[in-house]
């Protein structure tokens, strides 16, 4: 068996060239046929080097072994391209439709947070303004709303305060 670690530079060159040999068609491949595609230098080396010659035969055997796999390769049907383009268009339409709602869904948490912040700030500001007004005595404090307003004095009170001479008349 070819020991890859013991290959020389010439072996490497020959094996490199061998890997590049591509034979079209499904004909049986032979070692001789592969050698025919190598450079004169590589051929000369393969003639001297048993390991490289064995590698050539191995490559030929492997290719012949794998030939049945080439026979039934999957091929695209006649409508494949049309199907692909149709799927692309369908997906683009779907993305466009979802675009608005997707943005709303995406932004919803931020919107909620923003509205909450607005609410908190607004409430804080309103309370602050009211407190300021109370401090400046522009309006009664809230508690004053629940106290009865000072009513007009009763006549009885006026009479009590009147002198007797004023009452007789």
């Amino acid at each position, binding site marked *: 068996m070819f020991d890859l670690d013991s290959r020389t530079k010439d072996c490497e060159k020959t094996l490199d060239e061998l890997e590049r040999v591509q034979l079209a068609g499904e004909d049986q491949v032979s070692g001789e046929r592969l050698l025919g595609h190598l450079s004169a230098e590589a051929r000369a080396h393969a003639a001297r080097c048993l390991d490289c010659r064995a590698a050539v035969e191995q490559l030929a055997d492997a290719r012949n072994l794998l030939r*049945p796999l080439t026979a039934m390769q999957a091929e695209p049907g006649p409508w494949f391209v049309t199907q692909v383009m149709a799927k692309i268009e369908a997906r683009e339409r779907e993305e466009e439709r979802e675009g608005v709602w997707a943005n709303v869904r995406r932004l919803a948490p931020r919107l909620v947070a923003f509205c909450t912040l607005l609410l908190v700030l607004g409430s804080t500001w309103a309370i602050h303004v009211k407190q300021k007004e109370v401090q400046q005595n522009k309006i009664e404090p809230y508690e004053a709303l629940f106290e009865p307003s000072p009513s007009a004095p009763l006549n009885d009170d006026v009479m009590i305060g009147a002198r007797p001479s004023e009452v007789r008349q």
Partner: protein
Amino acid sequence: MAKPASQEPGRKSRVEDDRELVHRAQKDDKAAFEELVKRHQSRVFAVAGGILRNREDVEDIAQQVFLKAYFSLKRFDQRAAFSTWLYKITVNECWDLLRKRKVRPLVFEAEFSEEQARQYDGMEEKADGVPDVSERMALRQEVEELMECLEERDRMMLVMKEVQGFSVEEIAEILDINGNTVKVRLFRARQRITERVKRRNAAGV
């Protein structure tokens, strides 16, 4: 069979054409992308077919690959060839599918449906000496049995190299490994299957 990339005539100009098409497709030119699909569909099928066996899976994966390519195209910087990038996506999608199903690739299974068999049967006339569909399927299954002794990655590399015609450099780029590693693994994979055949023949199987 899809021609080996390295043998396609005017490969350099084709790569340049691809660059131009990709550039246009990146600017939302759908016709350009459609052209790319037409050019590369066969090879994507071949690559996926080398890993998966079921025709429906191959077709699903191929569609997924092109969809993914389309929607990621604007992020593709064209440092590698478009074809290499595409085949990388193909390999990854196939492996993802197999991982999800926890199935080994290239497992010996007769997965060809009747429809597929009819399709292949219709493709060529039966002549003396030419194996018919069932014989070809049997041969193929035999080969897949032989390859069971290989690691999954080595099997895939061997199929890509010897069946689909990728070069060592292309395989290295697609699988994201060193070129020398590819050569060594290919060499060892071939050694193993040819040894296995010899042992089998010696045993008279």
